[in-house]
């Protein structure tokens, strides 16, 4: 191959200020983790509410929740991000639109929101699936004790549902980390964006992409490790979530 390898490139100064290429990539990684982390909080919060709503006895509530899920999961993330950034502010009242545009960290805020909403739809699917995987009798047993519907969800159904869907949620965490790279399209300086600009500035494309690949693998491995620890911590003696047969493994 007609290619000049230069692994020392990482220690050369990057032209966009702020230290070496290595430093740049690291700062990209923190942006990736930060974006993914914040978006995950949103996704978990909204996803749980919407997921519960999907299983609610109230038909119209369940329908609304389903509509929410369908809306957010049927449009490619890339397109959603673009719409959030360029179209939503124009559709809002001018003052709100200007406020959105004037946010100091607009790409970060937009990416977090967009990624959060997108992932919340997928989390909602998992949460609903987890609740539905529990025997119908569990809901009945809670209600028969005199617990209200809300208390039954809070104390009986959700704790079990979350244990069952932990593997699926781990996949979603891995996915949100990887998906945060779409932020680059609106100028979020996360890992992939940093990698690309490094390859553009230096033309050492392969070194840049190797580094990014290695960082992504490491981050995923750590995420997997943490989730395994969590799974161990919350394991229920005598109960195996595998029996629920629900480690649905879709998504990216």
């Amino acid at each position, binding site marked *: 191959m007609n290619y000049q390898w230069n692994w020392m490139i990482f220690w050369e100064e990057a032209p966009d200020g702020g230290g070496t290429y290595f430093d740049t990539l690291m700062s990209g990684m923190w942006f990736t983790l930060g974006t993914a982390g914040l978006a995950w909080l949103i996704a978990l919060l909204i996803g749980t509410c919407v997921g519960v709503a999907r299983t609610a006895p109230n038909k119209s509530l369940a329908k609304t929740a389903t509509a929410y899920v369908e809306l957010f999961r049927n449009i490619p993330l890339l397109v959603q991000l*673009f719409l959030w950034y360029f179209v939503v502010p124009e559709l809002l009242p001018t003052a709100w639109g200007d406020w959105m545009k004037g946010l100091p960290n607009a790409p970060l805020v937009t990416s977090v929101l967009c990624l959060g909403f997108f992932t919340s739809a997928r989390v909602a699917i998992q949460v609903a699936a987890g609740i539905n995987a529990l025997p119908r009798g569990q809901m009945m047993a809670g209600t028969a004790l005199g617990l209200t519907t809300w208390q039954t969800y809070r104390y009986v159904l959700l704790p079990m549902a979350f244990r069952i869907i932990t593997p699926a949620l781990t996949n979603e965490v891995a996915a949100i980390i*990887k998906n945060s790279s779409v932020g680059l399209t609106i100028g979020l300086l996360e890992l992939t964006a940093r990698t690309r600009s490094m390859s553009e500035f230096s033309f050492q494309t392969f070194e840049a992409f190797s580094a990014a690949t290695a960082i992504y693998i490491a981050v*995923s491995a750590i995420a997997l490790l943490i989730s395994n620890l969590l799974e161990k911590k919350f394991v229920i003696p005598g109960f195996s979530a595998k029996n629920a047969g*629900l480690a649905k*493994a879709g998504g990216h």
Partner: protein
Amino acid sequence: MFDFDTDVIARSWEYLFLTGMAFTLKLTFIAAAGGIVLGTVLAMMRLSSKKIIALPASLYVNLMRSIPLLLVIFWFYFLVPYIGAWMTGADEPVQVGALSSCVITFILFEAAYFCEIMRGGIQAISRGQVAAGYAMGMTYGQTMRHVVLPQAFRNMLPVLLTQTIVLFQDVSLVYVLSITDFVGAASKVAQRDGRLVEMYLFIAVVYFVMCFGLSRLVGVLQKKVSIVR
């Protein structure tokens, strides 16, 4: 507010659909079909009791699942010519077009995800079913072929199709190779004519309609093929 220029869509719909959408659908179907077949093989490997068979499969799957698709597309695009040369023994890298490269990449990548779905599906079939197959005198292959896989496949059909919808959306990432899929076609027109907002809204609507329609179809189909219990 924008003044929407809908004319740009009318001008280019042929390119958008006959070139772009046609490619997107083609790649989606080839990758889904290939991915499911390869994924099923990987799933059976992962479930094998022999470590030498299970370990490489699970390594492969976990590796694929931890790298963003964008990077995978990139790597395969540049490395496939060398893998090809290595396999055929040629001294020049084999020229692999962007399309074949995409097909190979998506099949290999999606197989990792389909593998996990099929693995879940196979594991969910009760051990009793396998025992019943064996007890009848069926071999491992026959039990898999006639008893386990048909059931796993039908049970997992909704998830497989949901994953296919994800795949359908992910095809848009081939823009890194400058291939003209639907999103690529639309954004090329958008950039050339400076009509980004109109185009992106249009893409959103088209995707929503197609994906939503598809997922409705999945529901109908599921009722048809699902096993009477």
